[in-house]
């Protein structure tokens, strides 16, 4: 039995929504970052499912590039979080308001 494409897309949509909830509700910067990774993975799942559905490999190559960008993003983002913690002694995003005028 082939799993229908829509099952994968629904799973990916739910996964993306869980990530969105994490970004909107949590206040720990690291957990927010992990939720962003969840959203990236949800999109990756859509890419792979649709690429299978369309008999094409381009989706998988896109996932490869998304992973590259995610790795770069995590390295820089975590460095920023470490810097914030050094300056403010917190990773709670409610207390990090130095860019607020």
């Amino acid at each position: 039995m082939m799993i229908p494409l829509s099952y994968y897309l629904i799973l990916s949509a739910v996964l993306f929504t869980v990530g969105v909830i994490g970004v909107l509700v949590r206040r720990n910067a690291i957990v927010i970052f992990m939720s962003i990774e969840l959203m990236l993975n949800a999109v990756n799942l859509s890419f792979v499912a649709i690429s299978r559905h369309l008999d094409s490999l381009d989706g998988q190559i896109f996932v490869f590039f998304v992973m590259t960008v995610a790795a770069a993003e995590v390295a820089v983002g975590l460095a920023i979080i470490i810097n914030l913690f050094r300056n403010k002694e917190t990773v709670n995003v409610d207390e990090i308001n130095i860019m607020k005028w």
Partner: protein
Amino acid sequence: MTVTGFFFFSIAAVVLISAILVVVLRNPVHSALSLVLTFFSLAGLYILLNAQFIAAIQVIVYAGAIMVLFLFVIMLLNLDKEKRVGEKHPLQKAFGIAIAVFLLVALGSIVAAGVLYGNKGIHTDAKVSAIGNTKAIASLLFTDWVLPFEIASILLLAAIVGAIVLSKKEL
């Protein structure tokens, strides 16, 4: 239920439960560990989708490299459990979940409408299995996609330099 269906639904359940745990658990280390579980089970879904190369780099890059980075940073920062007191915005949770539900309905209606279509490619399952998934991806990556591939390497270099510059106290 067929074997494929059984695997799909059980892996999908693990993906969803561990993803929800990432958001719900209050200790960041526990969140990170359940994120590792999410990544592993997503690799299982990629295997079901005949994307073995993606499954392998999902485990190596995401579950291996990126999550180790996360755990190291959590260890360095020595975070406590998120405190419940001092919520500055009491409506934040309600609004966040409302927006997310709206988004889910929007995404679900797109999937339900079935408006997604595209031209079929040439890489059918049989063709890809004949030469191997990794080889097929590699031959595309080094021909059609060679410029983005090189740009990705420059991006990684920039990220390395950026991470070092940001985390060094003084240059």
